[in-house]
């Protein structure tokens, strides 16, 4: 099972399947599916990012959405100043990375619940700042983002264009995660999670490696935020509430901390089901969708605490 999940073949089969989605949506005459796919993709990117800190290193981070917001707003502001779109995306990543590194330097002496509380606080501060910094962000009214049509040679529908762009980013992000996982850095991260003292005394500069994981995760959040802003052509503080941070944490926990395949599956379920249910269920059922959603989480926590597709190491830890 593990070997199958980790094989190159599985990766390419999944990429091919993802590319087929727009065609399927076309055949079943349900174009909304592509939009859902794009949203799921963005959450996959975010969850792959959080997997570096929460999954590999085991740092509890409840404010990850703030960096998604920083990526989105950087893009919006850059676009407003007529920066070319690809450059705006690059800027989004750079600014997000810088912001997260700065936060990491100050708070990574904290552990466990303390870290969770401080990151949660940062998430709220970021949102409130955006909400009140009218001069830069236009406050609660939100910002228009100049239209950009990527991959116009591949598809006419902007939803399909962004879906394909996001899918490519997810594939790249998953491949990068995989490569880092199986390296000196990846081993150091997991070693820190397993036993911080032993890691330190095996020669790992723990603080520096935590900061590195923290910073790497920002690349994903910044990119996801940038793509989100470009696609929606509109950003408002309302998109970056605490609930979204919780959702990303739930995705990583549900899928399996430190497991790339698990995190992707988690995003598919938790980010994909609610909008699909909303679109397909009859009106009287719509009101129950969060109940269903909560039920899934409770059942998984009860019967599969290591996550749906745990990483091979994680599985052993929780089964014994």
């Amino acid at each position, binding site marked *: 099972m593990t070997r199958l999940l980790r094989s190159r073949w599985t990766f390419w089969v999944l990429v091919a399947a993802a590319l087929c989605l727009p065609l399927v949506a076309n055949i079943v005459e349900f174009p909304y599916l592509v939009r859902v796919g794009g949203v799921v993709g963005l959450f996959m990117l975010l969850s792959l990012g959080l997997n570096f800190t929460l999954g590999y290193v085991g740092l509890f981070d409840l404010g990850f959405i703030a960096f998604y917001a920083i990526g989105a707003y950087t893009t919006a502001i850059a676009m407003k100043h007529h920066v070319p779109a690809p450059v705006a995306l690059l800027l989004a990543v750079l600014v997000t990375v810088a912001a997260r590194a700065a936060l990491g330097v100050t708070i990574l002496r904290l552990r466990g619940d303390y870290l969770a509380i401080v990151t949660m606080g940062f998430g709220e501060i970021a949102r409130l700042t955006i909400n009140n910094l009218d001069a830069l962000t236009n406050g609660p009214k939100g910002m228009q983002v100049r239209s950009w049509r990527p991959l116009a040679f591949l598809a006419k529908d902007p939803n399909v264009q962004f879906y394909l762009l996001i899918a490519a980013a997810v594939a790249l992000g998953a491949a*990068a995660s995989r*490569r*880092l996982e*199986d*390296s*000196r*850095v*990846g*081993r*150091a991260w*997991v*070693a820190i999670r*397993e*036993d911080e*003292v*032993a*890691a*330190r*005394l*095996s*020669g*790992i*500069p*723990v603080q520096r490696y935590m900061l*590195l994981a923290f910073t*790497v995760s920002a690349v994903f959040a910044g990119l996801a935020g940038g793509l989100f802003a470009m696609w929606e052509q509109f950003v408002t503080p309302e998109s970056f509430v605490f609930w979204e941070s919780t959702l990303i944490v739930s995705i990583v926990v549900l899928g399996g901390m430190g497991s790339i395949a698990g995190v992707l599956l988690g995003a598919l379920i938790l980010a994909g089901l609610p909008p699909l249910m909303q679109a397909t269920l009859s009106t009287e059922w719509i009101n129950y969708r969060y109940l269903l959603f909560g039920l899934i989480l409770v059942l998984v926590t009860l019967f599969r605490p290591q996550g749906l597709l745990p990483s091979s*190491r*994680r599985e*052993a*830890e929780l089964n*014994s």
Partner: protein
Amino acid sequence: MSSSPKARPLLEVKDLAQHFGGLKAVDQVNLTIHEGEIVSVIGPNGAGKTTFFNVLTGVYQGTRGEILFDGERVRGLPSHEIVARGMARTFQNIRLFQDMTALENVMVGRHTRTSQLLLGPLLRTSAFFEEEKATEARAKELLEFVGLKSLVNERARNLAYGAQRKLEIARALASEPKLLILDEPTAGMNPTESVDLVKLVRKVRERGVTVLLIEHQMRVVMDISDRVFVFDYGVKIAEGAPKDVVANPRVVEAYLGKEGA
């Protein structure tokens, strides 16, 4: 063998102290360890032996005094820099990376002797592959050295107690230490396992590594040590050859109380 005057001092501790508020866990400790020695630290529970090891390896900063390792001052340096300078240790309560395989545990131990960061693995450069291959080969060699060759891919948590102790030693050796510090390596072992471990410590010395250990089993201490330091209430109360130390009245008093002496 090597308390001979010719041997070079590897570790010199001068007036070292570690206080916690009013508690003098380690105080006024002076000692020298020469290259190639096997030295034991003994003493009753709470004598400050583990605290002393913790100051040596940078877990605690020390309150006063000097630690010269291979001629360099190392007191107060972060642990990872001390490891990089050639001091490695094991723990009284085994601290392995439980869910990594035996091989991965030892590979983590090579951290300070390797350098690939993000770009190498991301771009899968040839330098990255070469380093990974060398790290793995070295880790396998060390697992064979400590006698765990057949358990390379076993998760650390699934290993028997004695094997876990050996794996910790292999992980420590992976950083290519000049000084290996073992905190009660035979704790909880049966006599056969202890004998096995004594053999391993000797083999480690044959590789050119100096060994400093805390040990409670007197049979092991007498068998293995070139010299012994005795700690009591944070202070070094005696040092010398094993058989001299056990005959020392102060040492007997520390263990058995005044009446016993």
